[in-house]
């Protein structure tokens, strides 16, 4: 079971900070995509690159550059470790700026 957002500090993070990040996107039929976030728009349609797919039957394969419309998305997830790094990076950045 993935962690709930309330359990994690997202302090100071904004959407642009996730660009380049590895996302795990849950779709229908237990399908999961893993890829680097290249772009997103205000409707939260995502463009992921170097996408790997895990189908409902467990079959894994590579798909390359994939666009994921918001309506198809059930959940967007980020590895805890990567999220921590993002938060830390942002914190340091802000500290230096101040």
């Amino acid at each position, binding site marked *: 079971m993935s962690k709930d957002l309330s359990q994690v500090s997202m302090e100071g993070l904004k959407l642009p900070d996730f660009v380049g990040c590895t996302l795990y996107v849950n779709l229908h039929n237990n399908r999961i995509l893993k890829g680097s976030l290249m772009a*997103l728009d205000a409707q939260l349609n995502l463009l992921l690159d170097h996408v790997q797919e895990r189908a409902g039957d467990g079959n894994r*394969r590579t798909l390359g*550059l994939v*666009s994921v419309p918001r309506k198809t998305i059930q*959940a*967007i*997830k980020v590895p805890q470790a990567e*999220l921590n790094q993002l938060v830390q990076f942002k914190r340091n950045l802000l500290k230096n700026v101040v």
Partner: protein
Amino acid sequence: MDLEGKLKNLDLEFNRDGLFQDGIMEEDLVDVTQFFDDSASSLQTKTIIKEPNFNLFEGTHSLEVENKKLDSTSIQLTPAEANFECNALYGSDEKHQLSYVVGILDRLVRSVVCWLNDYQTLPTTVLSCRYVEHLLLESEKKGQLVFLHTGHPLFDQILCSGIYGVCYFARFVQRLLKAGVIFEEEDLNFNGMGLNFLSYVEDGNSILSLLQESIRIASLCSDSEVLIHILKLLIHLVSIEKCLDEFSTDVSHLNALIEEATYLSQQPQLSNLEIPAGSFSIGIQRRLSNQFPPKSLIIPPRNYEGFIVMAQDLKKVLQVDNANTMMEIMQFANFFNKFEQRHVLARALFPLFLIRDNRTILGRYTLSEFTHGHLLEFSLMCTMEVDFPPEITEQPLMEAANVLFEWYQNTSQNTSRYRQGYNRQLLLWDSLQAQIEAMEVEWLSKDSDAAAIDYVEMKEGEEPTPLLPYTSWVYAMKVRAMIEFILKGFDLQVYKPFETYTMYWYTYYLAHQWEICLKKVQKFVDSKINAIHGLNKKVKKSKSGEKRELLKAQYRFAMDNHMGQLQVNKRFLQYLIVESSIFKSLSIAQVFQFGILTSYGLIDNKSPAKNNFTTNELLYNLRMKPFCSIGVPELLPYELMESTFKEFVPDEPMFTIKLNKAMECLHKELNESKLNVEHILKCIQGGDNNGVLVTATRLVKSEATKFYEGVKTSIETLETNSKKIQSTLGSKRSPSLREKYAVQLQFCEGGSSFFPVLSLTSHTSKKSHINQK
């Protein structure tokens, strides 16, 4: 095993857990959906956040999930396709089992034709076979060939070996593609879906043994004749790689391939064969790595003839090995792929067979010998520079070899890339000319004896010009490339009808420049031939015995070593001069025809499209852009094109007289070009010992004949078309003609695509034609 394979094995050993075997488990993930939703809701509607280096244009190539046209995961398979079991035995009895195996192999082999001859993709043809996918995946895991376990040799042995035969042949195709002489998607599709095409198999012998053994087993079954023929066909397919591995010119395998394909194409029972349900499907596009949208399954037509085309084209390529001279190699390259595009494998094989990995040409010439040979057979023979020490000439010859190889590689390209290749070559030839000319002048100026420079006196009383044999050859190659570049534009329908005048006017200019260069070299060759004959006269006149003997020896040496080549060079140059004359005549005829049509107000050399953002001069400069950085022949300015154009348009006063004069000139040029083409055709048929022209087309006789026959057909069509225009339009101009007719560029059947016809089409028929469409 290649590096990729080793890495994959390492990856297998290091088997990690997690959703994607990346060590990350579900509980390591944080759900940020709500955060993303909340943040996105505060963005302005048109906002796009993107990675700074990412170009959104690339995004247009992305695959959209849950879009049936783009998402291969949405492919729906039938239960038989989805659950197809390769290790099951299909067929209730031996007869049915045999029928299934023949059916699968027949379809697979025909899929190869669809893939290579019809430019279909690999996943929709060969890889649509479930057995191919299964065996390649399983074999890769083990790093060796694995077999089915149905318990029946028809499947476990024969079907497997047949499939490995096809896969091994695909590996050879992949090798040709990786050599970089043909292009993915453009020439053929090798979307291997991440499968390893038998890289762990050392050579074809193991596959050949499997196939031979399968033939032995098959021969024990009754009614297995067709199966044996399919297996034999596969043996010959697998053996094709010898053309590249051993540069073997033995065509017995190709002949046998043709025989097998002919036999199989005559077997009507093959069309009625069933295959196990689900054995061919588009499932692989859903199962394996795939960066492309779903594509429909290709049902191969009954088409074994495709193998015949392939084998014949490969045999043609191997014939280049019989070339005796550089002229023959060059003419081979010039014609073998010119009139009709050859099979993709033949086009890929040609440059690899000619220019070999061991840096030799056909295994016979070093790179500099090859280039030097081209020069000797054009302009270098009997010049002062022919004896220059290699330390001086080596470097420029290597430079020239690189550009010459570009030319050779380009000749086997597909019809569209062929023109692009010329475009790139123009700059290479031009910069080579600049380098080599500077070097040549330097060599000659260093020589204290000014008489060392070879001069040519073009006309009596005129200042002689230096021959510069190296530069002359490069220049001739460059101008020829420029002509091909322009004329190929007509073939590819790059030009609009209004540009016809400009492009043919320019072709005429280039052909004229080419002709001047050729005539200069020929004049020099002539002078050398005359000098040798002169020696003989001197021998006869000489009274002193010692001097006489010396002259006699000189004469004999020249006759034995130089005269033969000089005569061949002279006649080959004469052939090129006749060809340049054909280009000139046909180009100017097209210019006259354009002028006549302009005089009736039916066409103009200016763009008919009204556009505030461009001018006709800009369009002209854009069209001539590939030539703008070329030093010689210099780019002709727009103003000159405009001023000469007016001279080709008959106008008042005395319109009718001027029109008749233009018609007369047009027909005179067409007649002249027809005579020249017939002359060349006669010499091609007669062979090079005709004493007039050397065409060096011995190895490409039928291809060269087809090309010039095509030009002849075009000349006849231009003639008929011009008469038709004349009779339709009469000799009086009228503004209403413009409402009635339009001018189009049309290709004539069997004609040369370099010279399409400016034909009249009536507006009414054009409209009805569009309506019909």
